[in-house]
């Protein structure tokens, strides 16, 4: 298989996904199959072929720096798992 179980655990950690042992084993098989299939791209000669990041030209249109209304704070805070005094209450980055 393309992926070892350690690699699956490493990817899951990078992606911040907790997996059960069952999921780890299942995804190892499934992801390996998909990556094996995707490996056929390696045989394609892409010398001097530029990558396509977007089918449209990537220029960022600008606008005048004018203040515009955006959503009301209370409306957004209503979806916070924890909110205090109009602020998001979040877990500390450094415990």
């Amino acid at each position, binding site marked *: 298989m393309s992926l070892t179980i350690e690699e699956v655990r490493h990817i899951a950690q990078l992606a911040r996904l907790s997996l059960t042992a069952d*999921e780890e084993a299942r995804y190892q098989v499934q992801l390996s199959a998909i990556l094996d*299939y995707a490996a056929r*791209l390696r045989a394609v000669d892409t010398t001097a072929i530029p*990558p396509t990041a977007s089918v*449209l030209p990537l220029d960022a249109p600008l606008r005048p720096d004018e203040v515009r209304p955006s959503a009301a704070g209370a409306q*957004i805070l209503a979806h916070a798992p924890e909110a205090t005094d109009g602020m998001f209450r979040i877990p500390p980055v450094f415990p």
Partner: protein
Amino acid sequence: MIDLAALSLLEASHGLRAGAFSSVELTRACLERIQRLDAALFAFVFVSPEGALQQARRADQALTRWRKAPSHALSLLTGIPVAVKDVLCVQGMPATAGSRILEGFLPPYTATSVQRLIDAGMVIMGKTNTDEFAMGSSTENSSYGVTHNPWDLSRVPGGSSGGSAAAVAAGLCFAALGSDTGGSIRQPAAFCGITGLKTSYGRVSRYGLIAYGSSLDTVGGLARSAADLLPVYQTIAGHDPLDSTSLSASVPDVNLQTGDLRGLRIGVPREYFIDGMQASVERGVRQAVEAFRSLGASIQDLRLPHTDLALPVYYLIAPAEASANLARYDGVRLGPRRGKGDLLDQFLETRGALFGPEVKRRIMLGTYALSAGYYDAYYGQAQKVRTLIKQDFDDAFRQVDLIACPVTPTTAFGIGQHGDDPLSMYLEDVFTLPANLAGVPGIAFPVGSDDAGLPISMQLMAPSLGEAGLFHAAHAYQSVTAWHKERPAL
């Protein structure tokens, strides 16, 4: 007493304008059908009967005012019930994207595409079921339940816009909005026997669309015919300053003609007729191509040599983009939060518990393809091959005006058929993925039915911004055939 829900969108529109019936009556007819049929279909994840009737009453007032002064323009869409795929935000309605990680989310704003329909007086009935974060080809990946195909309840409606397709096919509404990142409008339209349009990348604003693969995502529509779909397309298309990838090209008026397609060059790519595809699907598509020939189009053989690379390219690029787009769902500031330990533990637990398996697979695929040491071989190479696939289309459109091909290798498959084999599910998308990689528009419409009575459909693709050509051709076909008039027995 005419069955209002059985009317076409244009018939309903004419009836409203003539005062033959009201938007409230039309909306009630749809609500009655939803109440009667949607328990078995599960096309809608959210319906707002009171909200819909309130919008209908406003539309009736607009229609009354218009009848007194008909010189004022009034959108054809005024008073017409429409459904919205649950990846598009509508203020006042929940938006789940088929995911538990967005459970309870009420968007503080409305997507531009939906707002344009609201401004045109359409009645938003509710939100339709979708594969989670639009990742899927069957709507089986919704965390809220599976949508059933109205033609055969044991089969999938397709995905990821399966709810929208089922709702239109079952007459629960007259049109629906969907999104198409790898085929998610065209394939469910094909499985449900209706007309579905993937728009050119950048043609319709993505503001308010919950992002999956940002270089591939498009917003489009579904209806029971090209003629019905046209006003929906014209209303949602066009530049939006809120979407920096939206094209500034104007949206031309389209007057649908019938009949003569002389001068139209249609290419049929041999790479889209593969071993293992359902024989009746191939037959149905080829017969439809002959119908285009009888209408005067010239048909030619075409090569799109990199077609078979579209699948591996898509299943590296889309997951890579998804892994970035879905990184925001972390339980820190918004949404449900899981885990009792430190910050890392809460990230892991929130995302682990609330994302479904397909989403987790794609996030991991994308993370791997972008990770140090693998980026060049996987993601980098996929981007280069994407250029080759786009060049195939650029070359083809120098020789032909439209490309004709199947939408899917088979008709609608059974619920559970692809079991635990994601790759076999991905192979359903082989004919739809290339258009997303190239950014070109495509329209799917029914051209027959198989021995099990399931719809067989075909697809036309055009160069970017070529939607008018798609509508002309599809409408010409629908003017001389009746497949789009078939209705599932419900």
